[in-house]
């Protein structure tokens, strides 16, 4: 009896001391853990994914990543939101040979050296049906006959119009197949400069990329199809004419400059009902709906009998050449372009025909023009045709910026073409 209780006493004492010791050591472990908070657990592979999105669009991507993690135990997808600094950070990571495994991509010529061609993976993948994708999209993520990015989302550009303003002026709603002449007449009727009311909004320093549809519709282009010449293309009569459409409307005050420095954006001005028509991608559509604007969408106008053409803004996902987990990266890319993931993306349009059919998007009057424009987007954008397009584009956009401020289009486009010649081999 006494021996037992003596032993129990000693045991208790020991356990008490060890308890005290434990609590001390655990507290020091805590601080150590908080220092190494970023260290990963054993047995998990981390896949880095870089995106330029922020806000709601970023949340969607994080959810897609989580779903991928759930389907692939042991994999952690680290979503890196580069935001505005996307190009800077991506270029830096490529330079440091420590790039994200998978990244958003549109500017393929700039990064093609660092990207992994996907043809090999696609060929060996019997599950993947490339025919389910809108074929025009591959045009935008391919270079030199190789696919470098899997389409994830896209948008084409359409014309938004404010039905209330049309009704007020008793003008019938525009229909697919309308022309720039129709467009100009409508803008004239819907403009009242004294009330700061205009038919259309033009960006003073537009991205020349967005103007390509307009130029192609008139049979013009900024660069030759082989990418070797700009003279005779950038300053061709068709190109000058197409650009002049916008500057003329500005001169006639049937259109107004919006979205310049310190100015309200075109989206906001359209929402405020101060411009009757606005040309843009799918991005502001939800915002217009939320603002309860009575609006419609329509294909862009054509130049007479010439077919109207469009340009696509696409998001693709690519794999870095220096990725250490390329197979896993491809698995993620494939998941990212799977119907399941594409259905989750609401910030842009689905790239898969089956998803569009299933969601009856082509029957949606607001969305169908986007898919019609997709069919009209079979031209290759200039940046895919020449490596030095950035430099050429500086001259081109300087000229177009000046034209929008009322200067002579022909003269400036000639100068820009002349100045750009030095960037062509």
């Amino acid at each position, binding site marked *: 009896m006494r021996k037992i*209780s003596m032993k129990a006493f000693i045991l208790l004492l020991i356990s008490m001391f060890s308890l*005290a010791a434990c609590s*001390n050591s655990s507290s020091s472990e805590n601080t150590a853990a908080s220092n190494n908070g970023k260290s990963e657990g054993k047995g998990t592979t981390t896949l880095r994914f870089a995106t330029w999105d922020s806000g709601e669009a970023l949340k969607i991507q994080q959810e897609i990543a989580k779903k991928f993690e759930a389907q692939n135990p042991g994999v952690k997808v680290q979503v890196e939101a580069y935001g505005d600094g996307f190009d800077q950070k991506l270029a830096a990571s490529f330079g440091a040979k420590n790039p994200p495994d998978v990244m958003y991509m549109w500017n393929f010529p700039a990064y093609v050296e660092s990207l992994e061609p996907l043809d090999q993976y696609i060929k060996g993948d019997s599950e993947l049906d490339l025919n389910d994708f809108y074929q025009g999209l591959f045009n935008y993520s391919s270079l030199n006959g190789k696919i470098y990015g899997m389409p994830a989302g896209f948008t084409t550009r359409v014309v938004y119009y404010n039905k209330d303003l049309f009704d007020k002026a008793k003008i019938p709603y525009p229909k697919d197949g309308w022309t720039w002449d129709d467009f100009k007449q409508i803008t004239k009727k819907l403009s009242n400069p004294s009330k700061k009311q205009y038919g259309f909004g033009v960006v003073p320093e537009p991205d020349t990329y967005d103007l390509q549809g307009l130029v192609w519709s008139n049979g013009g282009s900024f660069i030759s199809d082989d990418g070797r010449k700009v003279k005779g293309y950038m300053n061709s009569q068709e190109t000058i004419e197409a650009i002049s459409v916008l500057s003329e409307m500005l001169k006639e005050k049937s259109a107004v400059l919006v979205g310049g*420095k310190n100015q309200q954006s075109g989206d906001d001005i359209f929402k405020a009902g101060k411009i009757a028509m606005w040309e843009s991608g799918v991005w502001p559509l939800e915002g217009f709906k939320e603002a309860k604007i009575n609006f419609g969408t329509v294909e862009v106008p054509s130049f007479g009998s010439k077919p109207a053409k469009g340009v696509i803004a696409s998001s693709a996902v690519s794999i870095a050449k220096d990725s250490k987990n390329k197979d896993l990266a491809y698995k993620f890319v494939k998941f990212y372009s799977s119907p399941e993931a594409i259905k989750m993306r609401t910030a842009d349009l689905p790239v898969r025909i089956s998803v569009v059919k299933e969601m009856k998007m082509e029957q949606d009057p607001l969305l169908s023009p986007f898919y019609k424009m997709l069919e009209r987007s079979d031209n290759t954008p200039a940046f895919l045709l020449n490596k030095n397009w950035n430099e050429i584009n500086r001259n081109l*956009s300087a000229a177009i910026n000046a034209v929008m401020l009322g200067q002579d289009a022909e003269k400036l486009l000639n100068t*820009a073409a002349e100045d750009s010649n030095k960037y062509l081999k």
Partner: protein
Amino acid sequence: MVRYFQHFKEKLTDHLYGSIRAKLVLFFIIVAIVPLLLFGYASYKNSSAIVNQQFNKYETFATSQLEKQLVNIIDQMFVVSNDIQQYLSDPTLIVIKEEIPKTYEGFIEKKNFERFLEAHKTFNTRGIYLITSKGYFYGGSYLNTDKLFQEPFWKESENVKYGDHWIGFYQTQHYDSSKPPEQMIGLIVPIQSQYGVLKGSKLLIETKADELFSYIKFLERDVHAFVTIRNDKKKVLYRSTSDRKPLADDIVRTTNLDAYGWQVEVRVPEKLFYQSSTVIFNYTLLAIFFSILLASLLAMLFADPIAKRLRKLKDSMGRVSAGELDIQVPVKEKDEIASLTNSFNQMVQQIKELIEEISETERLKRKAELRAFHYQINPHLLFNTLNSIQWKARLANAHEVQQMIYHLTEVLHENLNFSDELIPLRKELNTIKHYLKVQEIRYGHMFQYEETVSPEAMNYLIPRLSLQPLFENIFFHAFEDGNGMIKLTVEDKADAFELSLSDNGKGMTADQASIMLQPHESNEKSRGIGVYNVDQRLKLHFGNEYGLKIVSELKKGTTIIMCWPKRSVSYDQSNSSR
């Protein structure tokens, strides 16, 4: 109150000294606390020293990181601003000729300049802008200068003259309002262009201060520091938001960024600085508390059985003292208490036996007293009757009968007198004479009696009836028909007397003689019972060294030697008066 306290104190001392359990609890607590206190104190001292040192390093590291980061950012912004100013003032380069580009050349210049600005951006750069007085700006397209011009920090920078600059922290409000504001550190430098187009323009370099603020937040959150950053004009650029007021005993670390005259002050409240040690201290206290609890618990567990056993023993003792002598405390263990209990049990058993014995003797004594009483009553009748007979005998002239009754009466008088246990030897010898007269009348002049006693011995005391049984014995056993010789001698032996009574009767063997002094069966008729009683009474009165000795030879005679101490009448009186 004081009385109550005193009462409590008394109660406590009572408890402490009055109960084994309390003592054991105290013992256990002391045994637990002393090493714990030593251990706790040592571990508290050492670990708190280590922790404080680490905390100090931790804080120093965070502070130095903060400073480094600050210096880096500011350095870099200055390098960039110098580079841009040089570019703008270099006459050989094509620089901006129009404040707001309107021409193809103007746009080309703008794009080139923006590319130049872009090239100076680093990872943390939010933006590099050249902002004209009219609100036009170079560098990106997201800035809202209308909002920017309303910002307090921009208004503050209005007063900055050429050659000077403004640096500070602020939250971005001048970008897309849908995005949350970001924490920035900004540098604003007025531009002097000799062409005058950019007159009043300012260069704004914005660097994201997230990382910088992560260090500040780290200091504020993990180190509980209060961070203050002041510029060279002692203007506060940043101050931790806190309800706490700076105290005199705060632990303050102030560092100067020499290049810019900035001052970073990290103030940690003393209490929080030593928070870790306080935690250790608290844990030690907790450990001590638990050990006290444990000790008390163990002591109770320990002490309870012992105390219980002792209590049981004590209760049993109480019951024994109350007279319950049948108690036997069961013993299971083999420890000291068990042996104590065993002794107790034995003691109770012995007491019980003793008491039984005593009560038995007491019973016998009472019986004897009763008998004595009985005898006392009867003598009156006997003496009266004997006196009557004596008188009747005298009247009838039966002289011999009268003599015989007279002597018998004298002998019986002595025999039935219980008043004094010790009587003078003279008196006893007198009675013997009467006894011998009776025998003489019975048997005639058949025997001779010689008595040699010194006169002073006559006054010393001897137990009543200690000689008569010896004489009776002689007549009963030694002589036949009272025929023989009896000699009595008393010798004075310093502090004792030695009396020898010799006869020349039958005598006996040594075995028979020794049997005479052994206790007999309570058969009153058996031989020598009187002699044994005399021996016992002498021993009872004076001790075992006194008593009778018998020397006898068959056919020759027997000598009984009686030995007793000298006792005078006065001694006996003083003795009996007790």
